[in-house]
C-alpha cells in the first residue's frame, strides 16, 4: 500500500494504470504531463513512488524527472519510466536524469507491481 503518482498524457493509459495500482491496494494520483506532475509535487503531494511517461506535451518525462530530483521532497523518491520507447539513448538519458527503473508499456500488471515492490521501502 503506497501513494503512487502516475503521469501520462493518454487518459486511457492513466485509467488502466490506476486500475492496476488501486486493485493492488495503492492510492493513486494522476497528471497528464510533467507540468501537472510538478504542480502536484509543489502542491504538497508526497508520493512514495512516481510512474511517468516520457513523451508528453508541455513538459516531457525527462524534464519532469530532473525537476523532481531538484525538489528536496522527491530527491530520493523512486521514479519509474513507463514508455513505449526502447532506444538505448533515451534510456541512458532518463537514467542520467535520475530515473530509477524503466518499463516498456503496455506492461503486464505483475511486472509493474513487482517492480514497484522492489523499489518501495519494505513496509
Amino acid at each position: 500500500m503506497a501513494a503512487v503518482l502516475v503521469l501520462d498524457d493518454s487518459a486511457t493509459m492513466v485509467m488502466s494504470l490506476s486500475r492496476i495500482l488501486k486493485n493492488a491496494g495503492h492510492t493513486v494520483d494522476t497528471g497528464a504531463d510533467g507540468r501537472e506532475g510538478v504542480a502536484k509535487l509543489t502542491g504538497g503531494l508526497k508520493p512514495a513512488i512516481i510512474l511517468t511517461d516520457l513523451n508528453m506535451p508541455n513538459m516531457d518525462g525527462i524534464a519532469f524527472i530532473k525537476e523532481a530530483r531538484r525538489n528536496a521532497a522527491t530527491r530520493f523518491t523512486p521514479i519509474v519510466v513507463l514508455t513505449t520507447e526502447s532506444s538505448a539513448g533515451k534510456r541512458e538519458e532518463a537514467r542520467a536524469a535520475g530515473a530509477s527503473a524503466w518499463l516498456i508499456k503496455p506492461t503486464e500488471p505483475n511486472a509493474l507491481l513487482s517492480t514497484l515492490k522492489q523499489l518501495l521501502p519494505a513496509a
Partner: protein
Amino acid sequence: MNELLASFVTEARDLLAEAAEDLLALERTPDDEAAINRLFRSVHTLKGSSGLFDVAPLTRILHAAEDMFQAVREQGVALSAEMVDVALRTLDQTGLWIDALERNQTLPDTAAAASQTLAATLRAAFGSVATGGAAATAASPDTAPEAGAAAELLACFDATLRRVLSRESGSFRLITYEPDEACFFKGEDPLHLALQIPGMAALASTARSPWQTPDALDPFMCNLRFHALSRAGHDTLEALFRYVPEQVTILDIPAAALLHAIPAGAAPATPAANPLTGELLSAQLALLDAPAPEAERAGRWAAAADVARHVLQADGHNAAAASVAAAHAEAEAACLPGRLRSAIADVLANLAAVVPALAAAPAMPGRDAQARPAAEPPERTAPRTLRIDQEKIDQMMNLVGELIVAKNSLPFLARRAEQQFGQRELGREIQDQYSVIDRIAQELQGSVMAVRMMPMGQVFQRFPRLVRDLARKLGKQVELVIEGEQTEADKNVIETLFDPLLHMVRNCLDHAVEPPAERIALGKPETAIVKLAARQDSDQVVIEIIDDGRGLDPEKLKRKAYERGLIDEDRMAAMSDHEARMLIFAAGFSTAATISDVSGRGVGMDVVRNAVEKAGGRVALSSELGRGTTVRLNLPLSMAVTRVMTVTLHERLFGIPMDLIRETVRVPAADILRIKSSEAFLLRDRVVPLLRLASLLEMTEPEAAGDDVAVLVVRVGGQTIGLGITAFGEGMEVILKPLAGMLAALGGYAGTALLGDGRVLLVLDLKELIAT
C-alpha cells in the same frame, strides 16, 4: 462499452484529428519541427494506448507509422507526398477501426490482412529495412515452402529430428520467432511463449549475432532466435503469437518435404565440445544429485539449469542450451527434478544430440488474460473536461424551450386577472413574478446555449485534408488558409454548415482555381490561395470562402442561364453584372461544361443557398473576373430560439423574425408617395419602397383607410423595404418549428410557433414572400 475502451475511442479520435492536421502542416512546411514532434507524439501515444487492447493489427500499423515519423524526425528522411498519402491512409484506417471498436468492441476479421499490407506499404514508403514486412509476407499461409530456406532453418535441429519425422505424416509448421531485442523491458518472456507453442515437435534456439565476450555482452538485450516445429494449425499458432506477429514467421512444410530438406546423414554442425563444458555440466549433475533441503530445491534447479545453459551457449551449443532451459521450465512446472537432470545428462552424453520436447508444453494459465483489461467496474480518473452526450444537451435545450413558451403565458394570465376578473393588484404581481422568471429563464437559456457552442474549427479542420486530396486529384496547386477557427456557433449551425461548405470548396477547386500552367500564363502565383474565414458579427456568424481563381464571368453566366431557359432575352439584356453572378444560385444552373466527379453531381449552388437559408442564414457573393470570388454566408449564432415580432393584419396575428426588422415607423397617409402602381415613403431623406403585407399574402380584405400606416422597416436581400401592416404587436422568443407534412410545401412561411395562450403563430419568411 467497457469504460477503458470508451476512453480509448475518444482519445484516439482526438489524437487522429491532431495527427492529420500536423501531417498536412508538415507537408506544407517540411521543416516545421513542432509539427513533426507533435505528430510523432500523437501516433506514439496512440500506439501505446492501443497496446492495452486486443487490437494487434491496429498497433502494428501505428507502429510502422511511428517508425516512419521517427525516421523523418531523427534521420532527416524527407517527407514525400507518397509518404503523406500512405500516412493519411493509415490514419483513415485507424479511424475506421476505431469506429468498428466502438460498434463491436472488436476489429473486423479483415483487419489482420489489411494491417500487414498497410504496414508493409508504410515501411516501403520510407525505405525501412522491412524486417516486419518481409516476415509478414512469409507468414501468409499460401507461401510455398522453399526447400532451400527450410533446410537452412532446419540446420539448427539435430539428427533426432529425423527420427521424429520418419514416424510422422501430415504437415508441420516451421516457426521462427525472433523476439524484439528489448523484449525483456516489455515484460515479455520469449522462452515461456515459445514453450507454449501447441503441438510442438521440436524447439531450438540460435543466436542472432555472434555472442559477445562476457564483458561486452549486454544481458538485457535478447539475442535469441527460436525455431520450432509444430503440428498445430496456422490459426492456433497465429493466435499464440498475436502480440508479436511481426517477430514470427510460420512456414507450412509437409513432413516428407522436411525429411527431404535434411540430407540424410547430414548431422547438424556441432562445434567440438570444450572439455571445460563437460566438466561444468558434470558439476551441475552432482549438484542436482546432492541431497538438498526442501526450501533450497527450486533454487538449486534454477542455478544448475542457468549454469548449464550459459556454459552450453558460451560454447556454441545453442540448441542444447535451449533444451536445457525447456527441460528446466518443464521440471519446475511438473515438479520433476528428473527432467532437468536427464536433460543435462543427455546433453553431456552426446553434445551433438538433443532430445526434442516431444509432448506439447502443458497449457499454462494464459498470460494473455492478464494483459487484457479486466471487466470489473473501472476506476474514475479526474477528467479535465466533462464530455456530455449530445442527446442530454438537446433534451435540456428542449426543456428550456418549453420553459420559455410556458413563461410566455404569464403576461396573458396577468392581463386576464386585470381585465376579466378586475384584479389589478394580482395582475401586477403576476407581471412582477413574470419578470423574475423571465430573467432566470433567459440566463438558463444563455447557459445551455453556451454549452452547445462549438468552435468553427470543428468544421474547418476537415478541410485541409479534403483540399489536399482534391487538389492532387485535379492536378492543381492550392493552399488552404483558415482563419477564425475559434469563432463559436451553435452546434446545430455548425452541423448544418459542413455540407454547404464542402460543396462550395469543391466547386471552388474544380471551377474557380486554374491549373498551375494557366495561372503562370496569367502571371498569377502558381499556387492558388483558398481562404476559409469565420468571424462573429453581433448575433451572426459570418463565413467567407475566398479564392484568387478565375472569378465569375457575368456574360458567360447570362448566356448559360439563357441556354438553360432560366431567363429570357429581355431579362438577359436588363440584368446587372451582380444579378448575373447571383445566377449561380439559381436552381438547375451549373457552369461546368462537363459534369466532373468532383463537384458536379447534379446539385448546384442552389442547394447551398437553400441549406443556408433553411438555417436562417443568407448567402452573398462578390467576384471580379480574373481575380477571384468571395462567397459570404451569414448565419445566426443559434437556431434554437428565434426572436420574432408579432404584427396584426386584419385581426390576424403573424410573426416576423426580429433579425430582419430595422425599425418601426408610422407613416402619415398623406406622405405615401405613389410611383406608377407602387408605393414608397421617405425615411430620413431616403426613398423606401412600401409593400402592403396583406397584398403580399394575397388577403382580400380592403385596406383600412386610416390617418397613418404602421410600417415595419425590414432589410431583406440587401434591400431596405417598408412593410405596411395593421398594427404592431410585441417582441417575443419562440421555438420555431418548420411546417411539416402537407403544409411543408407552402412557400412564404418560416414555420410555426406556439404562443403562451395556446394559439399557433405563423412566422413569415419575408425573403421568399418579397422575392415572389
